[in-house]
């Protein structure tokens, strides 16, 4: 799950080395915390959160197999 967000974020930002994803999970939900360089926030959120939502759609698809909910938060 973590890798999915990482692959996407690294491909979109100017500073891929600053991309960090922390994962914490309970039995029902997976919580992913994406951290990027301050200047790259816009690159992973997009207009009206379009990019962030597209990333969420993809991780949700990846999580269907385990049947868990995924929450993606973005931080700088």
């Amino acid at each position, binding site marked *: 799950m973590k890798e999915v967000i990482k*692959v996407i974020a690294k*491909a*979109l930002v100017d500073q891929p080395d600053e991309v960090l994803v922390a994962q914490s999970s309970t039995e029902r939900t997976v919580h992913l915390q994406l951290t990027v360089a301050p200047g790259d926030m816009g690159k992973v959120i997009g207009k009206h959160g379009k990019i962030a939502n597209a990333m969420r*759609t993809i991780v949700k*698809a*990846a999580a269907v*197999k385990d049947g868990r909910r995924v929450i993606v938060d973005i931080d700088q």
Partner: protein
Amino acid sequence: MKVVEKSARTIEEAIEACLVELGIKKDQAIIEIVEEPGKKVLGLFGNRLAKVRVSYEDDPGIIACKFLENLTSAMSVKADFDIEKNEGHVVVNITGTDLGILIGRRGDTLEALQFLTNLAVAKKLADRSRIVIDVEGYRKRREETLISLAKRLADRVKKSGNRVVLEPMSPQERRIIHTALQNEWNVSTFSEGEEPNRRVVISLKRSNNVS
């Protein structure tokens, strides 16, 4: 793929020279160090120069495939990719077994995948190239379904005279419906509502437009 090799006193200078020649930024390049700069050999031959090879992938199809390969393997999905170059856009066909997860409900996941791939490619390339992603011929099948749905609903509108409102669709899907019905002489189509809930409406053409 474009490749340039340069020598200079330091690795940084050699890289810089390559980047200038290719006209790209460092994060778009794949950099290999061919030779480290050396110390003087017996004080005779002067410094050995640093030599680097910088390559730059300039094919949108290959960039898209690399991104999708990384992404699908992170999702533990096994898939094959096949690039098809058309005028103005590149189609990447993804094939494999059990790829429903890449399509999602009403193609939501596929749309997200295509959107992100286009961004990832635009990041690496200066000139914009449009990437269309298809999974197991989904788009083609969906197009056929939408066209036959449009024709069926148009007939119903003609018979009943009542307008029909379709379910929310993406701009591309709405376009398919509009195009399918543009030559129907007594029905007209238009869209109403706001994204992402914009829907196509099929209605009878007003009588004064019908001769």
